[in-house]
């Protein structure tokens, strides 16, 4: 009975974590859309470029989420996601910040 309760608690924790990954993916897409602000309004060839970039970000994150959710099924007792993944996410966010800095500094609104 206790084991079942703890297993359920672990399952709920996993579910909350997957939802957190999902929100993070949406945040990445929204941030990318904000960085592409200078390409708006979406007219002409820029439209395809912008929509393609945003769609690519969404697809990449959806695939990553799928891999994550399928891998968590068998990782309950093993080490969870390694430091490499967290490091790459951090590097990606810092790169977004660097791009944002140059856009904010050099591109006139």
């Amino acid at each position, binding site marked *: 009975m206790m084991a079942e309760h703890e297993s359920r608690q672990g399952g709920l*924790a996993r579910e909350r974590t997957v939802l957190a*990954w999902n929100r993070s993916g949406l945040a990445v897409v929204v*941030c990318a859309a904000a960085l592409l602000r200078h390409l708006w309004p979406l007219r002409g060839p820029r439209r395809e470029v912008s929509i393609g970039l945003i769609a690519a970000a969404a697809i990449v994150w959806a695939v990553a989420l799928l891999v994550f959710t399928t891998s968590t099924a068998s990782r309950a007792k093993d080490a969870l996601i390694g430091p490499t993944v967290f490091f790459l996410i951090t590097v990606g*966010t810092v790169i*977004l*910040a660097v791009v*944002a800095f140059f856009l*904010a500094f050099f591109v006139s*609104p």
Partner: protein
Amino acid sequence: MISSRARPGSNIRPVSESQPEAEPDVRFTYANERTFLAWNRTALALIATGVAATQLLPKLQLAWGRRLLGLPLVILGAVVAAESFRQWRANDRAMRRGDSLPRSRLPLIVTLGIVAVGVLAIVVAGFGSR
């Protein structure tokens, strides 16, 4: 102190540093993961807000006014992202050793950063009203 290796409700004592590292309770690991992701989303929000401030605000009377507000937010976002990774690693190491979790610097960093940008915004608004 709650040992990250102990199950909630149990009386397992924390393991000292001399003992080898062990896999912590999976729920604590998930909680650490979610905390990292939450701080990373905060970083992304700060970056997006910084870009929005420079690109979407109307032109201010003070030269470089929009950049003065936006660029610190972008820099703060980068700092929060880097610090969130450092905090995740420190928490993970502490949980594996059974130590208490280290104190987080992120709330102080974010608070000071946002207060500084707020003060800048007041100054910029003051110049704009003249």
